């Protein structure tokens, strides 16, 4: 019944999320800002070659080298909404190997995306590298920011380097940077930041867009030393990865970076949980 509606709204006292008829998130409202934010999953096919020459290099453990442009995962998303008193969840299924839970907690000024990717299929003999991308209307003019190992934010400019003019032979990976805590874009009024729970690669390949690499499964060695393809398995199948990305949207004039930093610390240093049975407790 819920899927026949044109638009689904999930909200609490601080955050309002709007999903379109296809089940994709397409608008976020928080901190007095409303922004059309569409979230999707894509994958890049990994380049495969014999590594004999530069142009024949394969994507592997050391290098990310996509072969062609990204491929969208899931035009239509099946989903269910669960509304508790304190937490509201949207469980989305993009295909057989990509799903996600989007969560908002009462009193918490961020949106949580808990992704589940894998096992990445390789029966077509092509390695794949899965990303999530958030598109918005923010006019970022090619500029984005990534953290420096959880410390200060560094300014990155698409297709540029700080001290030299690069020969950009790799349009995608040439613009990827390490993201260990945070990646952000902004214009004169609005700012979007993504906070992650682990070191990932990330970029802003178009104005208003942010993407993070979530999981990879590749079938060729890249000849940089490891001597085997990045094709991890567990229990006889490709690895399944689960993790979280958090989105914070705010007004630039409110200096949201300060708030993001506090959130980032909580994400990286959550409570340690210890369990005991009460019958043994005094």
């Amino acid at each position, binding site marked *: 019944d819920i899927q026949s509606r044109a638009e689904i709204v999930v909200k609490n006292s601080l955050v309002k999320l709007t999903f379109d008829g296809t089940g994709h998130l397409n608008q976020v409202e928080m901190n007095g800002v409303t922004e059309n934010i569409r979230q999707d999953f894509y994958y890049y096919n990994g380049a495969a070659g014999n590594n004999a020459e530069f142009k024949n290099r394969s994507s592997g453990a050391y290098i990310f080298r996509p072969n062609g442009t990204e491929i969208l995962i899931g035009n239509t998303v099946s989903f269910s909404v669960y509304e508790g008193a304190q937490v509201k969840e949207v469980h989305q299924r993009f295909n057989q190997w990509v799903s996600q839970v989007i969560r908002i*907690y009462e*009193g918490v000024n961020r949106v949580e995306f808990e992704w589940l990717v894998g096992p990445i299929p390789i029966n077509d003999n092509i390695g794949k590298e899965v990303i999530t991308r958030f598109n918005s209307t923010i006019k970022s003019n090619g500029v984005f920011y990534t953290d420096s190992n959880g410390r200060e934010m560094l300014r990155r400019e698409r297709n540029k380097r700080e001290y030299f003019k690069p020969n950009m032979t790799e349009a995608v990976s040439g613009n990827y940077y390490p993201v260990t805590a945070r990646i952000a874009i902004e214009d004169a009024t609005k700012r979007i930041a993504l906070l992650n729970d682990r070191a990932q690669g990330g970029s802003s390949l178009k104005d208003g867009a942010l993407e993070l690499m979530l999981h990879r499964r590749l079938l060729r060695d890249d000849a940089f030393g*490891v*001597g085997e393809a990045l094709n991890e398995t567990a229990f006889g199948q490709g690895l399944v990865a689960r993790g979280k990305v958090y989105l914070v949207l705010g007004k630039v004039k409110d200096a949201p970076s300060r708030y993001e930093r506090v959130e980032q610390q*909580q994400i990286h240093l959550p409570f*340690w949980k*210890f369990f*005991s049975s*009460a019958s043994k*407790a005094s």
Partner: protein
Amino acid sequence: DDNLNQLRHAMGVMQHHDAITGTEKQHVAQDYDRLLTAAIESAQTNARLALQKLTNLTSGEFVSCLQLNISVCDFTKDGANQVVVTLFNPLARPSTQYVRVPVKNEAYIVTDDTGRVVQSDLLPVPSEVQALSFRSKRATHELVFSAYVEKLRSYYIKKRVNRRSVDDQTGVQLNGWEDENISEAKLKARPL
């Protein structure tokens, strides 16, 4: 010291650039898993002893569920009728965070260390996570509650029995269920 040294040694090995970037061979990655798991389990003994001294749970097991990230904790799913969740806040300031505990699909009541009822939600673990082959017959739901912790605090999770009530301190609706022992704990906790 022996317990902690095992973790120190494992963390020393993990400083290798292959461990940091993930460019190790698959069998080396599995060996890193083995080393780290053994080291964490070893250091857990010290954490348990320290927590037994710091809390009033002198004989508490203080089990760390290392698979909470995939909503798996056999201790809470199959454990006693009442489970104590002791939270240690590693931040240098008090913090309020939501806690997720994997449980069975039953009715629960959460109370804090003063016996006050804490509002909680019971939500299903996503079907895609439940379907993972290595996760079969594990928790189907997660109990979610908000916890305020300065440094160390315990919360109590108990299965509900049939009795209608509203918490008269917090006004929280107990969905028509309350436990007799919880009422008693609440009475004791009231300020004189």
